């Protein structure tokens, strides 16, 4: 008995040692990716935070040193910053409502069987794969041009005065472009979610004589809840950083009516060369993104543990 026990410990110890040796290369496999992300994301993030407390303007090389909270104070007192913040949040909010509302409606439609459904769905999701720069130019020129655009032509056909969309309703126009691009994403994700609906539960409520609305309210919505949650969080992150649509169409104008936070920072760097203030604004953008990211990261982490218990 005693002998076999020692052998057991010995084998166990040997096994542990072998396990350790077997794992040893693992951290070296991980290192390159970790280092890469540190160098390109985390170190710059730290530098941004550092610059945000420094006096640093490329146009004024003689001025330097600590600024304390000076850059943040400059932001606080800049009405354009506050309007940029408001515009950023407005874009996120309205685009979320549009893309998820339309995306859900379209997904329910494309979940049903009809003639040529596959082709129709393929056409409907295409806008998502278009680069935002192209989206901006199609909408600005071929659709929204006040004289030569399709919308202007349609207005004239119906005897209306053509509207200068980007001049009169610049922010709504930007929102329409982003909405057009991202509705297909919501559609795709929600459709995938619908396709994994629990058929047996649906059968059961149908047998109980539930009507369509009940079915939708009690089975579809709860099941899609998690999917919608993910879409909301992901789209928020992307909408917060909208840039190319604004860059190619309004350049933040007229005035500052379409200057969102990324565009504000872009201008602070490349028009005013103010590294300090733009870094402070960047810190604000990171904090804003974090507000959304925390939920997503928690979700991803939760997913991880759910996977663990398979």
């Amino acid at each position, binding site marked *: 008995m005693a002998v076999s026990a020692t052998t057991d410990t010995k084998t166990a110890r040997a096994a542990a040692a072998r396990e350790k040796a077997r794992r040893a290369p693992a951290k070296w496999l991980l290192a390159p990716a970790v280092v890469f992300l540190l160098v390109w994301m985390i170190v710059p993030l730290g530098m941004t935070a550092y610059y945000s407390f420094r006096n640093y303007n490329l146009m004024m090389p003689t001025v330097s040193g600590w600024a304390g909270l000076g850059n943040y104070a400059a932001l606080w007192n800049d009405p354009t910053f506050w309007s940029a913040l408001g515009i950023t949040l407005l874009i996120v909010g309205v685009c979320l409502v549009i893309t998820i509302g339309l995306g859900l409606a379209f997904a329910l439609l*494309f979940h049903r069987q009809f003639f040529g459904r596959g082709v129709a769905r393929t056409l409907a999701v295409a806008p998502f794969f278009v680069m935002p720069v192209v989206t901006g130019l199609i909408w600005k020129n071929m659709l929204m041009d006040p*004289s030569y655009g399709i919308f202007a032509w349609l207005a004239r056909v119906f005897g209306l005065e053509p509207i200068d969309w980007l001049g009169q309703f610049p922010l709504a126009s930007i929102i329409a472009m982003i909405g057009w691009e991202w509705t297909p994403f919501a559609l795709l994700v929600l459709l995938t979610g619908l396709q994994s609906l629990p058929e047996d539960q649906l059968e059961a409520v149908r047998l109980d004589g539930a009507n369509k609305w009940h079915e939708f309210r009690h089975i579809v919505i709860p099941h899609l809840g998690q999917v919608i949650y993910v879409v909301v969080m992901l789209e928020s992150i992307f909408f917060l950083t909208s840039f190319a649509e604004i860059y190619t169409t309004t350049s933040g104008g007229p005035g500052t009516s379409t200057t969102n936070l990324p565009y504000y920072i872009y201008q602070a760097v490349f028009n005013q060369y103010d590294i300090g203030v733009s870094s402070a604004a960047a810190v604000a953008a990171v904090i804003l993104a974090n507000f959304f990211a925390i939920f997503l990261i928690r979700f991803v982490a939760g997913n991880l543990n759910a996977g663990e218990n398979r």
Partner: protein
Amino acid sequence: MSATRSFSKSGVALGILGWLVALLMFFPLFWLLLTAFKTESEAFSITPHLFFDPTLSSFETAFNQGRGYLHYAWNSVFTAVVSTLIGLALTVPAAYAMAFYPSKRTDFTLVWMVSTKFIPAVGVLVPIFLVYKNIGLLDNVWGLIALFTAMNLPIMIWMVYSYFRDIPKDLVEAADIDGASMAQIMTKVILPLATPGLASTGLLALILAWNESFWSITMTNFQASTLPVYIASFKSAEGVFWAKMSAASVLSIAPIIVLGWFAQRQMVRGLTFGAVK
């Protein structure tokens, strides 16, 4: 679906509605395609021409004029492909280590990697611009490639990790007991099984890099500029260049739309971090 059901009254209504949605969503792209085959004067006209004599002249100008489309297209292909390959080279070992040799810190590492995806680009723009300026990486394809790689790495690692996790652990353990080395297990057991997953991860990275515009607009001037910069250069050209702009746009988005149609499911899986498969 039975024919009777799909041709029922509600089925027809549904079909009409479905096609209406599809055509409305696709219309701007359809119009772009049409405009690309028009002459400049047809493209820029008060009454839109639906029927016209198609011409390839705009494509010819886009190709031939100075260092036009092809210069940017080459940069786009090069940066997208190389950043995807580097991304995979970094991703496969990292995901392999985390999936098959998990330690106490693995969950944290993985979540940390994913979280870097949520740092907005403007949050790192200033230091990257300044450092690139000092070390000569501005307007340099390698500078852009590194940024594309960093931008896609979190999603790639997450995706490949989730594909690796789908591989039964017994297979790895069996190979281990047979005395296979880590390198052998990776090349002989894991990679063949994960090839479809790696392919779709690569495809997603390729699409995201190809469409990326923020870094190419801010970090390049001409030498390293990719297609989004070329297309954006039409933003101040009024009217006269609509057909050429459309031709260049069509050439820039067509390959990705085709690839995207194939990669729909993988994109959903990758971009939602596995929440929706």
